[in-house]
């Protein structure tokens, strides 16, 4: 089986599934970096950072009041009868990720949440079907990515950014 990155695995699994859901689906790393967003636009990075932040703040709040035994069993909800946010965490290759659904004008949020739970379970099974990959050190990339960077290169980088 061809070796796939985490982003490719998540994308290959979710791309077809999310079309059937009345929600924006986001997967993010623990540090808020986007892995997948079903609605890629200018808000993607900010939405992913908030998904990660809101989960970790809730987890910290819970731990302050009661010890948390298994955080993977938790889910996080913020909703009315038609719109809301629903979040899970899951592990992949010993790293934690967050799966978030943000929905609006939803006729049956309970059904949507059930669909998302099922999707998350299926995604975990899908990931388990890949052989566990050992971290491979690619000797051609040993050390640092950049040996040196000049001030002129940094100025150019920011200039390209419109700064």
């Amino acid at each position, binding site marked *: 089986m061809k070796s796939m990155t985490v982003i490719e695995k998540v994308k290959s699994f979710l791309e077809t599934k999310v079309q059937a859901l009345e929600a924006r689906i986001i997967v993010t790393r623990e540090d808020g*970096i986007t892995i997948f967003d079903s609605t890629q636009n200018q808000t993607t990075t900010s939405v992913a950072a908030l998904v990660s*932040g809101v989960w970790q*703040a809730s987890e910290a709040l819970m731990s302050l009041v009661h010890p948390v035994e298994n955080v993977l069993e938790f889910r996080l909800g913020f909703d009315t009868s038609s719109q809301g946010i629903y979040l899970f965490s899951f592990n992949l290759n010993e790293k934690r990720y967050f799966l978030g659904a943000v929905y609006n004008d939803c006729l049956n949020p309970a059904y949507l949440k059930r669909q998302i739970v099922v999707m998350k379970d299926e995604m975990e099974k899908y990931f388990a079907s890949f052989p566990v990959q050992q971290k491979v*050190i690619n000797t051609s990339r040993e050390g640092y990515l950049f040996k040196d960077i000049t001030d002129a290169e*940094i100025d150019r*980088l920011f200039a*390209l950014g419109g*700064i």
Partner: protein
Amino acid sequence: MSFVNYHTKEINCKIVYYGPGLGGKTTNIQYIYQKTSSQNKGQMITLNTENERTLFFDFLPLDLGEIRGFKTRFHLYTVPGQVFYEASRKLILRGVDGLVFVADSQVERMEANIESLMGLEKNLLEQGYDLSKVPLVMQWNKRDLPNIVPVEDMNQQLNKRKNPSFEAVASQGVGVFETLKMVSKSVLLNIKGGLE
């Protein structure tokens, strides 16, 4: 921890602005947001209290150009400066790649600066980071105010490791981009390329 995608040739890095309350962390980020062209910035997120103090964090995603073929994206965060938001500060430091310590240059805020810097070192240690190994840039902010500590004294009291430092008046944009460019350079130079 920075994220380098070798397939799409993208680099994502997290930079955190840390420092005492009312030191100018949010002002730095707001100035960057104002001066960046709209296609290069994402939505700025600000989680404030009623009186505009940072409650949880400010967040600004910045898409810059390419460096040696790698597209770069910096995620800028600020922490809440007020003493009682320690738990939030710890969370925001997770996965940090580079730090800007925004110190308030006013004489009466020196104690708060020292306390905040000690808190930063402690919070990093708790998460397995050694402050001496994380790229750090010091910013001496509010240099336009009358009652300020001389730069030499700021360095002596807050910059024993002799990290790069810049004088700033963040409200006018003075020193803001110089600081950001320096921390960006340090972060990019610190990215390990050995593992995928």
